[in-house]
Every structure is written in C-alpha cells, then in structure tokens.
C-alpha cells in the first residue's frame, strides 16, 4: 500500500488520493492464494480521467463531470453545505433526524466498527474505506458550519477541516464505497451506525444537488416510475415475458398453466424484482410452479410498478423511496388483495415491509410478508412431494442483509434449505445469520456497471463474501469439494446478491476454477420435487 491518508488529506489537491494495489487486498484462500496472480483492477482511460471525477481512488460510481471553473467548484461546495444543513431540519429531514442526531453526537471513535466492515477489511484495511472515515468527515463538516462555536473551537474538536471542491467530490464518491449493510452498527458499543450517515450523505447529493448514480436515479427510480420498471420493462413487455415463461415451464416440467395476472379477488399479490424476469426467469417460474402446486390464491400485477418490487430510493433518496413504496401499495389496494408477498429480493423486502411502514397510513396498511416465511409454511405443510437427494450437491446459504440483519428473518429460509437438501450437504458460512457479511453488491452496487466500478465492487466490496463462500466449500471442510467438476451451490434468495455473485464469480472465474454456482431458493425447492422427471437446476445450462 502506497499511502494511508488521514482525514484532513481528503481536501488535498492531488490527482488521486489512493491507488489500490490488487496484491495488497485481503488474501483469499485456495485456489486464489497466490498474491502474484491477482486479477487486475481496471483503470479509467486518460480521456475519462480528464473528464470525470475519480480523485478518491481512481474509480467512479457517480461519473461526476469535473467542474471547468473555480466558480463552478465553489457553487458545488456551497450547494453541498446548504444541503448538509437541511439534514438537521425537522421539516426537511423528519424521517431520519432523530437517529441522525444520535449518530452525529455520540461516536467515541473507538473503531470497533472497522473490523466489522467487509469493505475496509477486504481492501486490505485501506484507511479511506474505514467506516468512521466517512462519518467523521460529515461530523466535522457539520461542526464547522452548523455547531455553535464550531469555528472558534475548530482545532480542539477537529472541525478545522478544509471544505473545498476535492473534499466534497471525494465525499460524494466515498458515499458509494459502503454497501449500507449495517454490520458496523451491530458492532458499535453505543449503537451508532455508519450506514445511515452514508445514506444521509447520498441524500444531500441527490435531494439538494440532483446527483446520484445513473443506475439508481435516472435509470432507476425515475425510469421505474415512468415506465413501470427500473429495467425499462413496460406492462406489455411484462405480459409477453409471462407468456414466454409459461412456455418455458411447460418445456422444463410438462406443466401447462396460466399465470394469474391482475386477478381481482386474489388473496395475495406476489411481486418480484423485475430483474428476475430478465436475468433469472427460472426464479419466477419456480415461484409459479410452487404456488400452482400448493393452490395458492394469488396474482401478479401488470400495473405500472406492480411487476417490479425494487425500490432504489431506499439507497439514496427519501422522496423517490416514498413515491415507489406508495405506488406499490396503490397497486395492491386496487387489486384488493389481503397481503403482499415479496419475492426473492432483499432490499424490496425491507423497503416495503419495514422502512415504508411508517409512511403507510389507514387503508394503505396492507400487510406485507416475506416469501421466505410463506414458502417455509408451504414446505412444512407437506404440500410438495420432495426428494432431497435430487439436490445431491454441497450447498451453502447466503443471508441477504436487508432480510436477515435488518428484518430478523433468519430461520425460515434455513428450514427450507434443510428440508430440500440431503443430510450433511448444507454447510453454514462463518459467520452467518445476523452476523453475516454483505454480498458486496448492497445499496445498489450490484446494478452499477459503468466504467471501472464493477472491478472495485467485485474485487473489494465482494471480496469478503467470496472468501466466506470459498471457505464454506473449502478444503478444511471437505478436502476434495473445491474440485471444479463437483457442482456446488450458494443459495442466495435475493436478486441483488445474485447479481453481485454473478459479477464476483465471473471476475474470479470461480465456476471454472471451483465449480461454485449460485441459485435462488425456490429453484432448489422445485429441483427437489419428484413430480418432474428432469432436474430444474441445470449446472451446465447457466455457466
């Protein structure tokens, strides 16, 4: 590692604060244990560097254009400082003011959070990724501009920070080097969390300055509200896709049935992350098979937003978050369902069930339930004929942070996986459950694919999870299990986490080298059903 910048170095006028060296990242176990053969990290071209802000670490999540004049730089700083002030307002930030004040006022800087953070540890303990680095910057900026005596006592309380263009631009990028997994909050003796501070910084950029990653905002929530899905899928395209999936289910299983769409009087609205229809249609297909077999009275929706459960606002913007959540509820209300079941999408679970809960008044309070819970009930009621030996390969389970640590849904998915796999084939990662590590693609990273950001995501933020996966299947547990000819599955019941695993596995060429694959949970259930001759999971098909 070339250098470890201090907190005030964020303001220095150098071209780049930190240069990551792949050899200095956290070591990985076999077969990635040779430090000299680590995959490279893609660099921006010189033309891109001239145009785009990448002075933090050489990567860009926001693709911010570099200001051309000093006036533009000053205006950028002014807007940011104004926005920071609004975070402290009971009007502009009522939704998070209370918890934010506690997070600003009470950090003892004990650094217990640091070792809990997969980005910090995965990066080889790169100082700028320490959770407290980012939080402390915001605290010091607030002390400087918004605390009584802030300037007078600046040196004493650390508020003597230079807030220039570089400070603000680097902080903007730094807000997208944390996956909001909140593992650090669980490690804090005072209960302070850095993720909320990260999200509040993102809010200032989005709500005050209109700055957010394209994939989350313009190509995310804005597209979602306008076309019905962040994938751009229109209601007509959705209907076509359902027809395609009905055909595919028949081809795979011999079952032909019509999927219920916009069915009035259904008990349940099942809502998937629309990315599943495009990238992993076998997931909604497996849901359809299971719900059909179990005789569940449910429906899908073809209304705008009704067929896409995602809510990217959760990651960066309160207003966009509320708009999407209210629209989802409006769709359910129109159908008259008794509850909404969220498919295998972690952030959609937390968005609609937990975080949106207190913006839903009166008849907007339609119950929301996890598909994990619902599926565990179907499996345990014996509604499916299951032969676990059909899943005769090693499996491990990934815990999506949004569902597990942030909603407390820990056990149902384990009961399902154990019920559909042979004894001894399922192994837990270490740690797991509420202590799990994020996949590395949380808070939108898994869908942020522009320029060189995916390399950072796959090599740095996803590194700890990849290590956990290798260790779960690794030589210490079973000497021959990393044999690439032996398929093995990470069950990841979350679209975002699957997206991250797709990226990480490709980056490390993991399937070819180790035989590790990923799947959703419903696919594993259907694969264990004795109703079908052919296996539902086909290791060769996808990889």
């Amino acid at each position, binding site marked *: 590692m070339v250098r470890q910048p201090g*907190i005030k170095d964020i303001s220095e006028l150098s071209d780049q604060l930190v240069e990551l060296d792949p050899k200095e990242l956290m070591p990985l176990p076999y077969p990635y244990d040779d430090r000299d053969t680590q995959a490279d990290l893609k660099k921006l071209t010189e033309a891109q560097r001239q145009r785009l802000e990448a002075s933090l670490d050489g990567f860009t999540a926001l693709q911010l254009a570099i200001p051309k004049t000093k006036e533009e730089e000053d205006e950028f700083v002014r807007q940011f400082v104004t926005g920071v002030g609004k975070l402290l307002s009971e*009007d502009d930030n009522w939704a998070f*003011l209370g918890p934010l004040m506690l997070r600003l006022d009470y950090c003892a800087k004990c650094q217990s959070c640091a070792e809990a953070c997969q980005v910090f540890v995965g990066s080889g303990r790169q100082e700028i990724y320490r959770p407290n680095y980012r939080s402390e910057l915001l605290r010091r900026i607030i002390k400087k501009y918004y605390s009584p005596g802030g300037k007078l006592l600046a040196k004493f309380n650390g508020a003597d920070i230079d807030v220039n263009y570089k400070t603000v631009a680097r902080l903007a990028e730094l807000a997208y080097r944390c996956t909001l997994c909140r593992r650090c909050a669980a490690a804090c003796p*005072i*209960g302070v969390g850095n993720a909320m501070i990260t999200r509040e910084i993102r809010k200032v950029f989005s709500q005050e300055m*209109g700055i957010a990653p394209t994939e989350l905002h313009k190509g995310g929530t804005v597209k979602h509200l306008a076309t019905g899905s962040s994938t751009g899928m229109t209601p007509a395209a959705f209907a076509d896709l359902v027809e395609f999936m009905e055909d595919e289910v028949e081809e795979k299983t011999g079952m032909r049935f019509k999927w219920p769409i916009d069915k009035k009087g259904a008990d349940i609205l099942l809502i998937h992350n629309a990315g599943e229809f495009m990238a992993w249609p076998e997931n909604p297909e497996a849901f359809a098979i299971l719900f059909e077999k179990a005789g569940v009275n449910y429906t899908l929706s073809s209304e705008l937003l009704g067929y896409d459960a995602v809510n990217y606002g959760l990651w960066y913007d309160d207003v966009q978050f509320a708009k999407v959540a209210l629209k989802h509820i409006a769709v359910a209300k129109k159908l008259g369902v008794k509850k909404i079941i969220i498919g295998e999408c972690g952030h959609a679970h937390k968005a609609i069930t937990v975080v949106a809960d207190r913006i839903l008044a009166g008849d907007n309070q339609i119950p929301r339930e996890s598909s994990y819970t619902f599926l565990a009930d179907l499996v345990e009621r014996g509604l499916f004929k299951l032969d676990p030996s059909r899943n005769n390969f090693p499996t491990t389970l990934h815990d999506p942070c949004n569902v597990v640590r942030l909603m407390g849904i820990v056990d149902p998915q384990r009961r399902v996986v154990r019920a559909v796999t042979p004894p001894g084939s399922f192994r837990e990662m270490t740690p797991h459950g509420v202590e799990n590590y994020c996949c590395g693609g949380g808070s939108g990273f898994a869908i942020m694919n522009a320029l060189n950001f995916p390399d950072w995501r796959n090599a740095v933020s996803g590194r700890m999870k990849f290590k956990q996966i290798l260790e779960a299947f690794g030589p210490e547990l079973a000497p021959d299990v990393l044999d690439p000819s032996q398929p093995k599955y990470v069950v990841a019941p979350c679209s975002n986490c699957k997206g991250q695993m797709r990226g990480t596995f490709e980056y490390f060429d993991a399937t070819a080298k180790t035989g590790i694959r990923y799947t959703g949970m419903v696919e594993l259930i259907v694969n264990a059903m004795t109703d079908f001759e052919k296996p539902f999971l086909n290791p060769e098909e996808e990889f």
Partner: protein
Amino acid sequence: MWALQGLTYLAVLVFVFFVARRAARYASAPMHLRWELYPVAHEVDKEYGGSFMEEMDWWTKPRRTSFFNTIKAMAIEILFVKTLWENSRKLWYVSYPFHGGLYVVIAYLALLVLGSLVNLFGGQVAANADWWQAALYWLTVLAGVVGMVAVSVGCLGLLAMRTFSDGLRRYSTPADYFNLVFILAVAVTGLYGWAVVDPGFSQQRAFVVGLLSLKAVALSPIFVANATLFALFLTYLPFTHMTHFVGKFFNYHNVRWDDTPNASSQANQRALGEALNKPISWPAPHIGGGAGQKWVDAVTREVNK
C-alpha cells in the same frame, strides 16, 4: 469555601439541566422511519436474532415481547460493555476498568451522600462507630479507592491506546485527549487526597454535609483542587460526546430496538399526518414543487397520476 460550594451547586444544576435537555431533544424528535437492527432484545425465543416477521401472518397474532429480555440485554451491556468485548477486545481491557471504575465512583458518591445524611441526622460514619455506620464508612472508602484507581488505570490505558494505536490516533481530536486528562486529574487528585491527607474521605463527606445543609466547610488544598476539578468536569460533561449514556439509551430503544409496526400504533399514525404536512425545501429536479410545497405533495404527485 463558599465559592467552591457555589461552583458545585452550579455544576450540578448545569449537569442536570443540560443532560435533561439533551434527552428531551432526542425524545421529542419527529417520528422517524423504522431502522431496527437484529437481534432486537425484546423478542421472545429469538436469541439467534429472529423477529416477529418470521411468523406467517404475523399481523393477525398477538405480539410477544419480553420486558425481562430487554432488561437482561441492557444489564449485560451496561455492566460488562459486552459489545466492546465482542468487537474490540484490546480496547475493552482498558475501557472496562474506566467505565467499571466510573460506576464504582458513582456508587462512592452515593455512599458519600448517604453518609452525609447519616451525619446530618446525628449519626457518625466512622471506622469505630456502630457496625452499620462503620460498614458505611468502609464501603465508602473501598468504593472511592477502587473506583478512582480503576478510572485512573482506564484513563492511562485509553490515553495509551489513543496515542499508540494507529486506528484510534488518526481519528482522535485534541478534545478526546483533553477529556481523558481531565478525568484522570479528577481521579488522581481524589486518590492523592485519600492517600496523603484523609484516608477516610471524611473531608469530602463533611463537604457534602455542608452542601446539603448550606453551611460553609473548610477543605485541605488537595480536596479543594479535587472538588473544583470535579465541579468543572460536571459542568463541561453535558456539552460533550461523553454523555453517550444518554445517546446509548436512545440509540438502542428508539432506533435499534424500535420495531413497532405502524398498524398497531395510533401514535405513529398521528405523527405521520403531522410529518406529511411539513414543508420540504429540497430543490432537486425530481422533487421541486416550488416554495410552500409539503411532503405529501412531493411524494404523491407521481403516484396519483
């Protein structure tokens, strides 16, 4: 000694008022969105971190919560600083003597007040008094010495960690060192007075009697220094992050463990009505509705299309 006694009254008043004001500020903050983190202490039979949302149709069932589980989790956390033990073991070895020492010092102060009341009502707290008064005497001495030694050791350890541990040093401000030195000075002057001048803390008990009975009391110079430093510290404390005993309570109860579903809370429903009628001034293009715009307009404009 009226000046010192006056300073002490003022310090107690400042401490109580500003700590209460801090607590009131957090308690009266607008309703925030749910941001809980599992495990949540009041859950029943969910030691692994599970929640009521693991149950099918949870909203149709009575909620099971355990006050005992909450108290148990709080007690373990407060008494043993368990989270630090689990996540930062090296720091715990110096932080625990410090915090544990503070608890014992608080017990010592309570015993001093109790002994002063005994003296005021005609009793005598001394080594050669009745058994219970002698016990009170020895307990006070024990708590005072053990507490101040532990605090001093903890302070020195924390200062060493903040000086020599890279991660801590980088983020420590002059205020962080000053706070530790300040506390160390209070503890060391108290210990010095005990060791050299007054092995029974009788002067300090007499000082508290004076405070309680509004009478002037003379103190040795070392205890004047000790009481002055203590009063100044008490005055300074409410304005620092060292009031994290307040923050920790709200962080745990109002954020981390606050999982009350909106449907079951009429208070939250009312608070939502108020919140949505608040003005919003964020100007980004996707929000902008001009001056006077309310949250309800900003978030429903597109939904109602």
